[in-house]
């Protein structure tokens, strides 16, 4: 029998399962993947350079446009980094509001990740619509809070842009009452599904040590059994006050990453209940000048975004704009080990593996 030579196939940038404009250059032997190289940059807009030409307050809306599925945590990380650099202390109420919006954002983002993974695997329409229905409710609440559904510009240095409005509270209580039972229903419907199991169990296995060495983070790292969540390990915004678990996977396959997201949504519901019960009164914004001039120095602040560790490294020369504004983008670094994850699997498994990493190209390319 004649063995054909390996051949190269481009998957993307315009492929429905690549979540935007990710191009994967696959080297194949028949249906089996020999190696993969992600070809990036189709959405590159040089946001880091752009930030150096803006004032510190103006950097916040630009962060909205990186990971556009979790703009709240992007805003939060940037605001915390600026606060650390400039020595600003946000009031208590602002800190708790930040926790509330971060956890709502995590639910919205994970819902989208679950829905699109199933959509990619051929569960056409229905699961995605179920999850989008939940996400829409969160977006409605965000619209009440700040008027925007995607790019919020809500968390600012010193606090948040405005207080939570009165109609938000009944809406979030209703959501917290209904969402957990629906989440159980979805899990029952999906997790045991034979097709999903066949497509994800034992696919894209990532050993624990490799995941740590490759600097992966978020559900992708925790799916491999590493209990590393910044909300526990290095708490910010007073996360140490809330009781919650850090769900981890066992095998590190695509199914574990999928299940970690399910469990994280439940924990987020628990954090939201605690934060709403104990929400203090008082001011929601510290007095901060429009033009912040932090002293000469540097600050690195990490937050646990739905996709992993989102870090901001800011260097100030004492001026009104940052000298250097670097973003440690979890989606980008989570692609580091893609080659090790897909090698030896079939082309169809690439879809499941990329879907289970949950990348957002706006953040990968920045």
């Amino acid at each position, binding site marked *: 029998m004649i063995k054909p030579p390996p051949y190269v196939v481009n998957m993307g940038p315009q492929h429905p399962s690549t979540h935007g404009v990710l191009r994967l250059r696959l080297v194949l032997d028949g249906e089996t993947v020999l190696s993969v190289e992600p070809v990036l940059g189709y959405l590159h807009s040089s946001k*880091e350079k752009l930030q150096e030409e803006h004032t510190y307050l103006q950097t916040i809306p630009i962060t909205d446009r990186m990971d556009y599925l979790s703009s709240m945590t992007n805003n939060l990380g940037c605001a915390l980094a600026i606060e650390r650099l400039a020595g600003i202390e946000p009031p208590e109420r602002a800190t708790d509001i930040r926790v509330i919006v971060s956890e709502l954002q995590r639910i919205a983002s994970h819902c989208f990740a679950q829905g699109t993974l199933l959509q990619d695997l051929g569960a056409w329409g229905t699961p995605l619509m179920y999850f989008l229905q939940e996400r829409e409710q969160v977006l409605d609440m965000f619209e009440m809070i700040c008027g925007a559904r995607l790019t919020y510009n809500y968390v600012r240095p010193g606090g948040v842009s405005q207080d939570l409005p009165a109609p938000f509270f009944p809406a979030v209580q209703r959501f917290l009452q209904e969402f957990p039972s629906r989440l159980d229903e979805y899990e029952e419907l999906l997790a045991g599904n034979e097709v999903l199991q066949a497509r994800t169990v034992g696919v894209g296995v990532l050993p624990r040590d490799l995941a740590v060495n490759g*600097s*992966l983070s978020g559900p992708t790292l925790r799916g491999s059994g590493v209990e590393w969540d910044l909300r526990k390990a290095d708490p910010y915004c007073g996360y140490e006050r809330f009781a919650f678990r850090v769900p981890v996977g066992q095998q590190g396959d695509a199914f574990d990453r999928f299940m970690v997201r399910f469990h994280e949504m439940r924990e987020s519901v628990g954090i939201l209940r605690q934060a709403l019960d104990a929400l203090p009164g008082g001011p929601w914004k510290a007095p901060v000048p429009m033009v912040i001039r932090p002293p000469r120095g540097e600050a*690195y602040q990490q937050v646990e975004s739905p996709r992993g560790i989102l870090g901001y*490294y800011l260097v100030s020369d004492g001026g009104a704009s940052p000298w250097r504004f670097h973003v*440690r983008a979890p989606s980008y670094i989570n*692609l*580091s*080990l893609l080659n090790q994850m897909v090698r030896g699997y079939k082309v169809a498994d690439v879809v499941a593996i990329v879907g289970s990493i949950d990348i957002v190209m706006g953040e990968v390319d920045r």
Partner: protein
Amino acid sequence: MTRARSGGELAEAIEHAVPGSVVERQPGAVVVDAARLLAVCRHLRDDPGHGFDYLASLTAVDYLDFFEVVYHLYSLRNNTGAVLKVRAEGRGDPAVPSVSGIWLGAVLQERETWDLMGVRFNGHPDLRRVLLWEGFPGHPLRKDFLEFDHRTIAMSAVQAAEDH
């Protein structure tokens, strides 16, 4: 809570393990000699007292006189953090050794830093541009990259596409 290792204490330990490697002690960071960077990094990763198994962030800053590559390291086991820096002099072709053999997470981050800042990482397995295309003139995050000729960029993209 992650305990940040102070620059002074960490510098002592590094100097003890790899003599002559510490260039400058900062309150929250240690600047090490580029020639001994790999020995220092290997020590920080493999010594159980440090155990820095996780490279969270790798980036570079243009300080006009020199480029500074900044490593934010974490130990997931000990829950400690450290900041390591290394300097590359000159604006022509600054270079530092690649740590991608120690932490795989550096592979993409070093490519990004080379692409946008123009710091070369010697020993990197695949140091090509990642966000911009081959043939892009200059490195946009450098402070002297201010104005560019749109026509040159368009032509270089055409050239790169034809070469491919």
